[in-house]
């Protein structure tokens, strides 16, 4: 029997996007977006509402087909090898929820099986310890606070030890303490595992803290692309928020 080809990345680039377009009829949601992300790095997608961030993330995850262009994850075409790639990525967003009636443990078991996780019970125990949700395991997701839900959603997204994790506003609606806890955890997790994060956020201090590079998007296009530090210097601003506001007021993002 032929051995199944395993997805291996030989270069440091784990995600590359080349000239992707997404059109809905006459509307161009995303136009000529290109960038690449290296292993163990976090890239931020920034832009005002409707800038094309979520559309881009959906295309990167392979659940929205680009009109044209090429997206490669771990050197494989995201659409052609979607099911193979899916094992190595995961996703957390406060806007996509877990079944409320199920307990945290039940949800983690379901998604653990969906991702084909080996030694699932051990993995659930480890993640629950790390994310401090051990005492929530038997509680229903619907009964949790926003902060607890975010941790549980993060636990679900880490159940398969993803090589690439997509985070859509991971700290939206969290108080500063909970938000800081999540950011610290993500930093620690990345150091330990070498995972790559793709982060869409409106929280500029968060992006400044977590991201190695930032893709500034406006009207579906990449307006600028650099490290937060370089962007701040280039736009002669005191922080990333000021950069964002400058571009927004020029109607670019």
């Amino acid at each position, binding site marked *: 029997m032929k051995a199944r080809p395993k997805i291996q990345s030989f270069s440091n680039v784990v995600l590359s996007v080349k000239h992707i377009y997404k059109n*809905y009829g006459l509307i161009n949601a995303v136009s000529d977006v290109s960038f690449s992300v290296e292993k163990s790095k976090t890239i931020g997608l920034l832009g005002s509402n409707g800038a094309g961030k*979520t*559309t881009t993330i*959906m295309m990167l*995850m392979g*659940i*929205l*087909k680009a009109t044209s262009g090429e997206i490669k994850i771990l050197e494989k075409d995201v659409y052609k090898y979607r*099911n193979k790639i*899916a*094992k190595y*990525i*995961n*996703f957390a*967003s406060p*806007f*996509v*929820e*877990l*079944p*409320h*009636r*199920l*307990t945290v443990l*039940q949800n983690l*078991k*379901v*998604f*653990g*099986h*969906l*991702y*084909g996780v080996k030694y699932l019970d051990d993995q659930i125990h480890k993640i629950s310890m790390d994310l401090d949700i051990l005492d929530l395991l038997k509680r*229903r997701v619907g009964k949790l606070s926003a902060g607890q839900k975010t941790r549980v959603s993060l636990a*679900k997204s880490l159940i398969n030890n993803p090589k690439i994790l*997509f985070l859509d506003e991971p700290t939206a609606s969290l108080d500063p303490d909970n938000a800081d806890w999540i950011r610290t955890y993500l930093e620690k997790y990345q150091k330990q595992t070498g995972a790559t994060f793709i982060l869409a956020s409106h929280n500029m201090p968060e992006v400044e803290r977590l991201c190695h590079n930032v893709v500034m998007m406006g009207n579906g296009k990449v307006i600028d692309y650099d490290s937060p530090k370089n962007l701040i210097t280039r736009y002669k601003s005191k922080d990333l928020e000021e950069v964002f506001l400058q571009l927004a007021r020029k109607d670019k993002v």
Partner: protein
Amino acid sequence: MILFIRRIYAMILRHIYLFMCSWPRVLELIYWPFLNMVLWAFMSKFLAQNSNIFLMASGVLIASVIMWDTLFRGQLGVTLSFIEELWSRNLGNIAVSPLKPIELVISLIIASFLRTLIGVGGAGIAAYFLFDFHIPLFGIGFILFFINLLIMGWALGLAICALLIRFGLSAETFAWAALFFIQPLCGVFYPVTILPEWLQPLSLLIPATYIFEGMRLAFFDGVFGSDLLLKAFLINIIYIFIGVCLLLFSYSYAKKNGLLLANGE
């Protein structure tokens, strides 16, 4: 465990957990088929006292209602299992996971089978003990009648899921109402010869028509209509194929139009 089986198992487990956590859902599964059966069982008793036809085959109305429920619950089992993902805004998580659309289809069918088994099986057992109801089994022949009703229910259920993916929860009404459009045409309680002549060809396109006809043949004449079973089965193969294709097409459409994350309440 082979990975694709494990993914399907995960989706079944999700529904089993849901039922374990929500007793009103389990109760609802049993409640309607049971109530329907009881109502028609009393009606049968009354008719048997006043009509020779029903005296000859007293179980025919109970059989009709149990078989109708098999069809309805089979369809509802597929659509409700899918709607649960929309209600809980979980479709995005599932779409991102390695679950393939065809595995989703298989898991919906298995979930529907389990739901129907609980609901209709419960009503059938109750009919046996409370009303001394017996189905003429003809070996496994009559079970094949039930299986055909399930297949038709699944085909329709998958087609409705395709609409749900395309139009979101605004298409939810179809889940409850679609089959009742077919009910008068497929002769659940009466032979289709009662229908106006221009409607009869339409009823012949419905697999359930042959099954209900076969059921009456068994009750009234004690004959197993294998030709009717075969006709139903052949039409069902076409319909289940169309149902699966519609769902896969709709999923692909959703992928092109960004509907997989946007679906929800």
